[in-house]
């Protein structure tokens, strides 16, 4: 019995209540335990990634109930990879949050943080559709708390919209699950796959509705146009380290699309033909376009980075929406890149906002301007997909993989023009923020109203050293991802292969071959 | 014997039905809010009570198993209904009755609902 599989879920689930109960009044201890927890999670993630890299699909039957009757956790290459990504992402962010004092601007930051990690890991590992819903909700509700962490009128207002929109999404999730259960009579993903393949013709209409509703739910999470509206305001107004963590949330949507639409409603399944391909790709193209346009059109750094997140999701979904092994391998590589790059940019945006507010406009010089400028430059390069960082490799992979697509021309055009607009937008922002000579007479007031709400509690002594270490950690991640692009791509290629042979998954879960 | 028991049960049921109906009918028919308050007490007491009695009698005498838990519902209703009524009455006094419209409260001068320092500049809430 391989208990490692549930460890990424159980560890935060125990750590977070422990922090609440025992360490509620000890911020220092909370920080220590929180970081230790993330490190432990990273260790677990590495372990399970090592276990999964062999190519065997491991199944953990919770409560010792056989699938499909109980809930199963399934560890395959993709889930292991995503858990690893989550842990990798969490470490710099938690360090940054500590260093910047963000965790002290409201209560329960660390507990919510770990609950969020739990939700994300759970969503990646579960092999049960309804359990996926539950973990979606765990990660969502934790994100609600993290998003409104620290309060402030604008942030709370954005929070209301965020919650309301996502509640609609959760409702839709239930409608979708209900429909799928109502037709197939099962909730286990592998079992759904098995039954979908054999569905009698008289039931296809209902099943198709369920499948498309489910896809829409994931599209909301993945911020696919026109369901992305929740993202810009909420990411831009969230505490930015939290927004950095949210970089993984959109990936949960992308992951789920990949999972369900390779396993159950895959490209070869006749029943669900035409539900994905017809519109997901155009929608992804639009997403990229809107994201790129938003980067150029934003007047606030956080909002700009939020649009960066949308644009990178667009690129990712362009690759995903082709549902070929090659494109999926590219997408999985891009997932890593996009998550780290988005998070990096959010952290840098926070460094900027903490020092001089977020408007993309000339500002008084700030401390450590040179270093931050350099970091911004690196982050922008990564995000725009310029060499030498992984963004370029990712973009090349996506372009290369989509050359056989039916509408390769438009895909390429959108990706490349999108990159262009992104470059222009980021260059504009960077030059305005860092290069503009500051005219002291222009800005006299508005200083307090600009950045944080004026009444925020006095921030504790910030630790810029640690903050920069955290940011450098993210940069290092990107650099490593570039340097080891070869092995990484090999891993993702094998992962994609595994995804496109769902029979293995099904037989591993349902144990039919034994 | 069974017939008598059934008759008893039927009697309880009919009584309860009538009073349940009357209780709600009163709410429609009576015009002033305070009088309407009287109506539901019928439904609470004999209305529900009758059904519960019928149920108890039914299970004890017809099915032969001792099932008295319906009494609990009665207990709850008897405990809670006066409070409900009290609060609604207080609401009415608070909203619609001036101290001078009510009977004299003796040495205490005011009824409890009115015994409060009035805050100025509070919007009117006649819609409610």
């Amino acid at each position, binding site marked *: 019995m391989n208990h490692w599989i549930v460890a990424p879920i159980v560890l935060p689930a125990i750590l977070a209540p422990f922090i609440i109960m025992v360490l509620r009044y000890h911020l220092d201890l909370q920080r220590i335990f929180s970081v230790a927890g993330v490190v432990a999670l990273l260790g677990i993630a590495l372990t399970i990634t090592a276990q999964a890299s062999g190519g065997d699909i491991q199944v953990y039957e919770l409560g010792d109930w056989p699938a499909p009757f109980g809930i199963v956790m399934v560890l395959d290459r993709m889930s292991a990879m995503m858990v690893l990504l989550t842990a990798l992402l969490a470490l710099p962010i938690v360090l940054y949050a500590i260093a910047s004092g963000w965790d002290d601007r409201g209560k329960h930051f660390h507990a919510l943080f770990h609950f969020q990690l739990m939700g994300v890991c759970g969503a990646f590992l579960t092999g049960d559709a309804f359990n996926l819903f539950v973990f979606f909700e765990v990660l969502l509700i934790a994100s609600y708390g993290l998003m409104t962490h620290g309060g402030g009128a604008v942030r709370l207002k954005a929070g209301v919209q965020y919650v309301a929109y996502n509640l609609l999404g959760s409702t839709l999730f239930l409608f979708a699950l209900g429909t799928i259960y109502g037709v197939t009579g099962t909730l286990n993903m592998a079992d759904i796959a098995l039954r979908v393949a054999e569905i009698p013709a008289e039931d296809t209409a209902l099943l198709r509705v369920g499948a498309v509703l489910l896809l829409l739910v994931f599209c909301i999470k993945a911020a696919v146009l026109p369901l992305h509206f929740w993202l810009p305001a909420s990411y831009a107004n969230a505490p930015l380290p939290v927004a950095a963590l949210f970089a993984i949330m959109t990936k949960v949507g992308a992951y789920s699309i990949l999972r369900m639409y390779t396993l159950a409603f895959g490209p070869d399944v006749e029943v669900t033909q035409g539900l994905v391909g017809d519109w997901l790709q155009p929608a992804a193209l639009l997403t990229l376009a809107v994201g790129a346009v938003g980067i150029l059109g934003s007047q606030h750094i956080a909002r700009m980075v939020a649009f960066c997140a949308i644009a990178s999701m667009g690129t990712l979904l362009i690759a995903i929406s082709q549902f070929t092994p090659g494109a999926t391998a590219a997408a999985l590589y891009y997932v890593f890149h996009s998550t780290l790059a988005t998070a990096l940019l959010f952290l840098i945006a926070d460094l900027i906002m903490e020092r001089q507010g977020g408007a993309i406009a000339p500002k008084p010089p700030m401390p450590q301007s040179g270093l931050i400028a350099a970091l911004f430059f690196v982050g922008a390069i990564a995000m725009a997909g310029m060499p030498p960082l992984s963004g370029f490799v990712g973009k090349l992979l996506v372009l290369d993989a989509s050359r056989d697509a039916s509408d390769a021309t438009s895909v390429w055009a959108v990706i490349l023009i999108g990159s262009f607009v992104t470059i222009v937008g980021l260059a504009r922002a960077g030059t305005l923020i860092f290069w503009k000579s500051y005219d002291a007479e222009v800005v006299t007031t508005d200083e307090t109203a600009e950045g944080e709400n004026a009444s925020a509690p006095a921030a504790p002594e910030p630790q810029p050293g640690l903050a920069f270490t955290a940011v450098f950690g993210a940069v290092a991640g990107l650099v490593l991802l570039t340097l080891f692009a070869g092995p990484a791509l090999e891993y993702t290629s094998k992962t994609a292969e595994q995804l496109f042979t769902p029979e293995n998954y099904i037989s591993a879960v349902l144990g039919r071959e034994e | 014997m069974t017939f008598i028991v059934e008759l008893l049960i039927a009697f309880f049921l009919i009584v309860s039905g009538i009073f349940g109906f*009357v209780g709600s009918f009163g709410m429609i*028919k009576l015009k002033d809010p*305070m009088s309407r308050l009287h109506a539901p007490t019928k439904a609470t007491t004999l209305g529900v009570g009758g059904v519960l009695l019928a149920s108890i009698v039914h299970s004890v005498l017809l099915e032969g198993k*001792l099932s008295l838990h319906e009494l609990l519902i009665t207990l709850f209703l008897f405990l809670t209904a006066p409070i409900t009524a009290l609060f609604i*009455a207080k609401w*009415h006094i608070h909203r619609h009755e001036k101290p001078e419209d009510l*009977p004299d409260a*003796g040495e205490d001068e005011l009824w409890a609902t009115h015994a409060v320092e009035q805050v100025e500049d509070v919007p009117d809430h006649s819609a409610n």
Partner: protein
Amino acid sequence: MKLLRRIFPHPHLTILLTLVWILLANKPSLNSLIFGLILGIIIPFVTQPYWPDRPKLRNWPMVVEYMLVVLWDIVVANVTVARIILFKRNDNRQPNWICVPLELRTPEAITVLAGTITMTPGTVSCDLSAQGHNLLVHCLDAPDPEAVRDQIKQRYERRLKEIFE
């Protein structure tokens, strides 16, 4: 003794709760009795802070008598009120407020009295006076308020005074 009082803050409540448990279980058995008793001891202990004083109950026969009287009154009053509602025209009805001066002082007694008044249809206890010395009662149809007040004082308050004070 003090210890005993701490453990059994409200013996009546313990009895009531045990009874409630047996009713809930709906199956008179040793199991439910013992379990009910355990809970019946634990729960008053837990809720004791919210019920700091300890009402005294004496004169148990009177309790029974009071209950019977009230039950009878409920039946009678129900019929009366039903007739008023069904057959009496709104214009002919004489709704009225009555002030009942209270001799009772214990909150529990006042509560029972007010509850009784409300549960007997035709009258609803509406408010206490500012210091709790009078009870405001509304009558659905009371051409003679004095009579109603006297009946309340005679039938209920007298008995309650004997039970609680």
